[in-house]
């Protein structure tokens, strides 16, 4: 933001950064083989849905496209709004074969059709869900691990919500509401993955997403 923008008080929302979404489609291999983190077969893209007929039409078209391309691999699409008014488009692999590549392709299709329609600045983030296989020192054993892709910055960061009551057998979605996050585990993941994923360098931008519906 230049001096001129400060003086005129003008501010436009940034469009997406150069795309590094597909880094996940190779990084998951080492997550799985070396770090005991399995893909959960679900990913979502989060964006602000403009309340205009034109935007709704774009969304409908896009859902058709994703359904069509996902048809071969069996990927399903569902849409929901969260309590903050953001829209989640959730892509789910079939039980039999989970493929991070397919999910990344689907997410990218959604993102690029929003961008082509001229609303690239409405994209917030993409979320890929993983599951921690074995209990770790960080205490996140068996819990969900999310990798969040920030569209504005083109960086990834890990998000590991902690169950609120450690002994409780609450469901994952229940436990991840407004709780604590396993910062230690996230920092470990940063160190482990930084050669393969472009990780957000500024820790204060590792924004949590509570109540992730996937």
């Amino acid at each position: 933001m230049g001096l001129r923008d400060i003086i005129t008080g003008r501010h436009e929302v940034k469009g997406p950064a150069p795309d590094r979404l597909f880094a996940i489609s190779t990084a998951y291999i080492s997550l799985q083989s070396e770090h005991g983190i399995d893909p959960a077969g679900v990913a979502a893209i989060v964006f602000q849905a403009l309340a205009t007929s034109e935007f709704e039409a774009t969304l409908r078209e896009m859902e058709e496209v994703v359904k069509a391309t996902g048809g071969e691999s069996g990927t399903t699409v569902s849409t929901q709004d969260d309590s903050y008014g953001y829209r989640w488009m959730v892509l789910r692999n079939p039980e039999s074969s989970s493929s991070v590549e397919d999910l990344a392709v689907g997410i990218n299709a959604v993102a690029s059709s929003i961008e082509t329609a001229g609303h690239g600045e409405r994209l917030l983030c993409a979320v890929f869900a993983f599951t921690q296989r074995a209990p770790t020192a960080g205490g996140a054993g068996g819990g969900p691990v999310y990798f969040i892709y920030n569209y504005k910055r083109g960086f990834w960061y890990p998000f590991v919500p902690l169950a609120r009551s450690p002994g409780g057998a609450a469901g994952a979605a229940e436990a991840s509401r407004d709780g604590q996050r396993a910062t230690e585990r996230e920092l470990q993941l940063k160190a482990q993955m930084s050669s393969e994923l472009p990780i957000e360098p500024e820790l204060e931008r590792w924004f949590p997403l509570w109540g992730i519906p996937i």
Partner: protein
Amino acid sequence: MAKRRSSFGKDTGLQARMVMTMFLLGLVYVVFVGVLFAAGAAAGVIVVVALVLLLLQLFGSDKIAMATMGVKEVSPAQEPELHGIIERLCVQADLPKPRVCVIETSMPNACAMGKSQKSATVCATRGILDLLEPSELEGVMAHELTHVINRDVMVMTLASFFATLASMIAQFALFFGGGFGGGYGRSNEEEEEIMLVLLVSVLVYAISFLLLRALSRYREFAADRGSAVLTGRPSALASALLKISGTMERVPTQDLRRAEGMSAFFILPARTKKSLMNIFADHPPLEQRLAALERLESQLQSAA
């Protein structure tokens, strides 16, 4: 940035008025500084004092304001919804997360403080948290974050520097030069000089006061627009403004009096009386703000 389609049109008129106001302000200040230097030595001391005051204001004003207003920082665990809204807007605006504070008062309002993006603070009152729906609260918070993005506190503090200086000089000159048995060992020429500086200072203060108020109103329009651009929901902010203004009249006066000093930071000024003339107001009238938001909404709807 490359030309890309945007959901909203440009608002060159507002920017032109803002730049014009700043230009006039600068012009007044240049004349003022010229007169000060022409008047000679003693003015130098005042400039130094004013500079120190300016630095104090830049680095301390938010702390002082926060201390007097009973502002409390809240953690994500205490206010998950407010934090959630602000975090998402920060991602959207590519902004580091500011400190999030709550003021325990029933008056619905919100404000942003801090001289830079890194050290910013956004506050919401308990009243506004209770009153507004999430989407409306998001619009209000986006308005405050736009103040942070536009560095409005910094701009307004710097813009008002010479106005502050002029008012100080006017007071100084009254004290030491004017009435109170002044004139010991002073020639007529010195007397005249002091009177001239006094006159110019008063004049500079009066003009810059009006210009500053105009500038503040333009920054508010810019922040409304920024909020609409950030959230993509101009009507949510309009609805929030309507709700806030509807309840502003019913609030206890004691709170208002305490809040009066902060009104430049607030989303709606904390006042019960209607102001005499719009040129003295630091916030634009509600009708104009609503009209501007309505224009944005229709731009959005017809952007097919």
